[in-house]
């Protein structure tokens, strides 16, 4: 009987050792792969940067490029639902915000809502924003602004704020 138990123990020990080796081997492989995955990420980021430059040059050359960004005023608790942008009377963007996106805006993020092309000279931008105020009442604002497009890329920053915050509900600045 003790001999049988000894044999069983030996088999179990061997199994355990094989299992441990297998786990150790997996872990080493996982580590090695992790290094290679990091390299692949780095490669793809490099490609993405070059591609973005090419795309910008090809699709949005500096002298016609216009980009519109949306941000929430610092500390504002407006629950933004949607933003619509028109340039020279033409709708160019209509965006509905997810919870994650709204959260990112509240944390200081800025969303590039539109990139396109316009001729040099004066243009009209109309921004319409809708959502809810912290007390649950509806928020709907619309404002028009004029901006001047020169030969360099034009960045238009739209900052939204609650109507009762003491700040303009929709403000536009050029960068």
């Amino acid at each position, binding site marked *: 009987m003790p001999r049988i138990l000894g044999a069983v123990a030996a088999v179990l020990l061997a199994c355990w050792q094989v299992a441990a080796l297998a786990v150790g081997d997996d872990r080493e492989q996982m580590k090695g792969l992790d290094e290679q995955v990091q390299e692949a990420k780095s490669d793809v980021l490099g490609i993405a940067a070059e591609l*973005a430059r090419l795309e910008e040059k090809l699709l949005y050359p500096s002298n016609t490029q216009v980009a519109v960004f949306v941000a929430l005023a610092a500390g504002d608790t407006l629950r933004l639902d949607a933003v619509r942008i028109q340039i020279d009377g033409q709708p160019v963007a209509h965006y509905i915000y997810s919870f994650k996106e709204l959260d990112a805006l509240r944390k200081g993020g800025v969303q590039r809502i539109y990139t396109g092309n316009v001729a040099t000279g004066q243009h009209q931008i109309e921004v319409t924003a809708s959502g809810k105020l912290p007390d649950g009442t509806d928020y709907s604002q619309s404002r028009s602004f004029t901006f001047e497009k020169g030969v360099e890329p034009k960045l238009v920053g739209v900052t939204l704020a609650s109507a009762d915050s003491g700040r303009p509900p929709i403000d536009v600045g050029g960068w």
Partner: protein
Amino acid sequence: MRRAPSRLLGLGLAASIAAGPALGDDLRDLYFGEAIFHAGQGHYFDSLQRLDTELGQYHGLDEPQYDTLHYHIGAAEFDVGDFELNYRMHHRAGRAIRAVLEGDVPEPVRNEAAYRLARIHFQKDQPADALQALQRIDGEVPEGIRDDVEFLRGNVYMALGRPGDAVAVLERLQRSKDLTGFAAYNLGIALLQDGRTGEAVEQLDRAGQVDVEDAGGRAIRDKANLVLGTMLDESADHARARVALDRVRLEGPFSNQALLRAGWTEAAAGNFERALVPWNMLAAREVTDSAVQEALLAAPFAYSKLDVHGRAASLYGRALETYGNELERVDASIDSIRKGHFLEALVREEIHQDPNWVVRLRELPATPETYYLMALLASHDFHTGLQNYLDLEDLRQRLASWKTSFDAFEDIIALRAGNYEPLLPDIDASFREFDAQFRLRMAQHELLERRLHGMLTAPRPDYLATADERVVLERLNRMEAQLADADSEQQQALRERIARARGTLTWRLHTEYHERLTLAHEHLRELDAVVEATTRQYESFVRTRQEATHSYVGYDAAIGRLRQRVDAALAKVERLQARQGHLIETVAIDVLQARRERLVAYQEQARFAVADSYDRATRQQTSEARP
């Protein structure tokens, strides 16, 4: 202890967001804000792509102080490291932070960089390097990270097997508001590692009663109570163990283990009736959990101890049936994983739209491969492998989409070439004519400008004669020349008349000189506006003409190079993904095999116990039936 890195990671991200600009007032670089927007949603690839581009442009400038990113450069340099860390690119994150550390930066910034570097080393299981980085911290440390630095130091000491040093550090953190719960728990573990069991029990008891509101703090408090309860149970202090285990929340992540342990604590104290309360509760929960599977055996065991053999036999029977079903499910899972269905399920796009995708995945009908996903995710290796696999899938999809973009780019270029090439020769010919005229007029304008300027110091009234006056002067000169050799009286009179006429003209030119000069200047300024408008038009035309060419010429090499890079990267990513997928499957099957073995063992026990319980129940009935 494994929770500490994630806690630190969370703090790092919060710090990075906090370091971002307050919008509307402070933000100077919209693209930097865009990077933060992506990072705020956990889209680290996009945030890195944006920030890498911005930083690359910034560092390539001759005078970066005039760039809008200059206002945020400190935050941007840190954030890029943070984003890389969150995107699980430890090597690059380390390099980014080392660059800050070695740069000419103020003391608090350097110290924060050293802290972040230490954190990376700690996450990579390099505690000695982490300690070395922490030792570089000297002087002023930003207030927001002071406690985090010390908390990390404590964890590093523990990882290095220096629990005594960890105790000293963690004791100082017990009043830290942000680390409530974590510091208390880790101190208890450090004391335990240091062999100070009595003090460890007291500390874990304190950690188990801390007042915390956040989910992480509550979870660590539960963990302190579970560890404490287990320790006390093993040292036969059942009464105190019960108190600690009762403090674990019923809905928390440690609830199942605590209920199981609470049952064993009561059983060890001989209170089988009380043991049934947690075990019965546990037995009704999600059956894939290992604690629940154990409870299916434990509950009838308690009934048998209470001599309720009929109930015990019935529950053993139910356990036997459940184990059988679970074994079938585990086998189906293993089989499905081997067929490759598991990896297919993991990358389903619609699943990842849901924040609870892990739960949803498990609930999908006819997907045995994901039934034990929660159990698999508990394995660290599986978790790492899964994250890498999902990242690789994301890279693969991006690369595949870019590949198709090249064809679209080439179409655009071909269309533009087709549009411009027939038009440009005529336009260029017209332009050459216009260009010659433009240059001539510009030269004339410049000459006039120069002359008028010279006349301010050396007056030349003749330059300001009108066209009629010039004609008259010319005629007078001509007549004077004709009379040059004549000497008759009549001719003499004519010469005098010519001289008088010239004198009158000269008088007028000299007396009206200043008015005429002013008028000439006014006319020239009027001309300036026209010249300026023409120059603008000329430049605009030149620019538009250049852009017409630039819109379709010179892209072939760039597109060709990118196409090659994308192809190579796609091949590499697909190769890595296949290897990573295979490894995930292997680890998943290993974990499921281990689970299978445990189920088989439980099944054996249940099979033996059900027979025994029926036997005892029958004997009990017989003895009760006897008069």
